[in-house]
């Protein structure tokens, strides 16, 4: 059975693109347009992997990532960050939040900066699902 991948991104163009890439590589895509909807879909659909944008209007990727990595029932779902912001800024914001909330989260397995090539994404997904 093909693996379920949840695509969380506020940009419909990005969703269309990633969904197509996933379908072309025999994954089953599900979409969510913000962090709030993302969490809801994770709970409903129980995906095998999540690709996550950082800058989204409601419930940012930074928060959703923390939520996923600190929830015992969710923290084993692999997350691939797929975003326009640099890894450096992402890590800085995570560090600030870690200090603030007194809880550390692991660095994401894959951090892909847009624009992403289809092969690059598929490689990252395959690599993550192996582990």
């Amino acid at each position, binding site marked *: 059975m093909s693996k379920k991948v949840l695509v969380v991104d506020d940009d419909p163009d990005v969703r269309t*693109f990633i969904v197509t890439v996933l379908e072309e590589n025999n994954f089953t895509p599900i979409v969510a347009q913000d962090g709030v909807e993302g969490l809801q879909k994770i709970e409903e659909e129980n995906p095998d992997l999540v690709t996550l944008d950082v800058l989204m209007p409601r419930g940012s990727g930074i928060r959703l990532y923390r939520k996923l990595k600190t929830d015992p029932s969710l923290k084993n779902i692999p997350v691939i960050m797929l975003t326009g912001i640099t890894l450096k800024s992402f890590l800085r914001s995570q560090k600030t939040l870690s200090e603030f909330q007194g809880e550390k989260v692991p660095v994401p397995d894959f951090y892909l900066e847009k624009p992403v090539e289809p092969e690059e994404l598929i490689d990252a997904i395959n690599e993550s699902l192996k582990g």
Partner: protein
Amino acid sequence: MAINKILIIDDEKDIVKFLSMSLKIDGYETVTAYNGKQGIEVFKKEQPDIVLTDIKMPEMDGLEVLRQIKMIDPETEVILITGHGDIDSTIAALQRGASDFINKPVKDEALAIALKRAEAKIYMRRQLEQYTCNLEDKITEATHEIKRKSNFQKLLIRSSNDGIAATDSDWKFVICNPEAEKIFGCKFSDIVNKIDIETLYPSDIAKSFKKAAKEDKDENLDWKETTFPSKDGNSIPIRFSGRILYKNEKMIGSVAFFQDLTDIKKLETELVQSEKMAAVGQTVSGLAHYVKNILVGLKGGSYVVDVGIKKNNTDKLIAGWDTIKKNIARVSDLVQDLISYSKEREPDYQICLPNDIIIEVVDLVKDVAKKNNIKITTKLDPAIKETSMDPQTIHRSLLNLITNAMDACLDDIDTDKNFGISIKTYLGANNIFCIEVEDNGSGMNDETQGKLFTSFFSTKGGKGTGLGLLLTKKLIEEHRGTINAKTNLGMGTIFTIELPYKETETELKELTKEDLS
């Protein structure tokens, strides 16, 4: 210096001995001589302070002794010892400078009084001498000090960075330092006592001096920026101040200070230039970022189209083509924005109802707002009537502000708020039409607020060109208006646009009145 050496001259040795003894008892040092000639020799050798001499002596009498002593040292006090019948000689002696006389037989009290007087005279003279001496020293010292100070001030004036020029009460130049010579373009020697300020100074400077003198103004003139025409026909940017000088409430002259601003102005221009360059740099990097995002969209879209073609999947074709079209639209928006920003545009004034334009814009955005759970409310002042404005300016500016306000709500980390945007219009003082756009979104920190209108700056990542507010400001300013923002981090932001307002009707009425008269 104590007075204690006394010379006693008398041909009667017993008297000399007696006097010497009695004076020694009183604490004086005495030297003696038994005739006039000997007396002069002893005087030269011993230099006594006081001389006691008999008048009547053989060969050289007391008068001659007095004369010679006074020649040697006019300040010696000479007391004469006189007998009966010496009245004439006594008078002559007093006329020649004897200080006192005592009668024979010499009585102790009389001698004591005569000596006291002589001592007092000597003491006073010495005091006077010392005082005079001191006075001379003090004058020399003071003269030095004055010279030093005046040299220092001269040096100060000469080497001052400011041009300094002073005039007498007839406004003729008496002082002009090298810096002032540079600004005036002439040598001090060419203008000293020759020409007055009206010939040399630009009229505005000359006028402010004469005005200050007329008003008896005893304080510095305010620093003012103006220009000084230079010899080569250019003008030197300067700052100047000055003061009317008074002595006993009478005007005795004027002094002016000039600062050459050429270098400062040059630096200012360079600064503006470098800020512009920095802005261009930011624009380029902002643009590159934005263009990159468009490319991401185009690439993604073409991938989806490729898949659609390969699989003969119409849905994919439509979706991919949509993405491509959307991104083509983004490119065209960007180009539009860039063109409008770089182009000077005259507002296209038309008779319109500003409140109607606002309703139009709100209509345009209300669906998006509703989708995002943002409530838009309006409070439009019905007193605003038809007026001549550029509807495009109002439309574009307001659309931009409302879009920003919605983004501020969506960007807020506090997602539990009841987000709302309220748009208000009203007439302010002095015929000003105001539009207020208030949101309760994220607000801005100081850094963001500082960059609002100044540079190509966006907090929206790839979604904004960083040109929106800059364009709005440009449109409003071309319309002779202003735009301001008040913000509170976490609480929201209020943007206020102010535009000149004139009711069309009154304008027409005035026109008619003019036509009639």
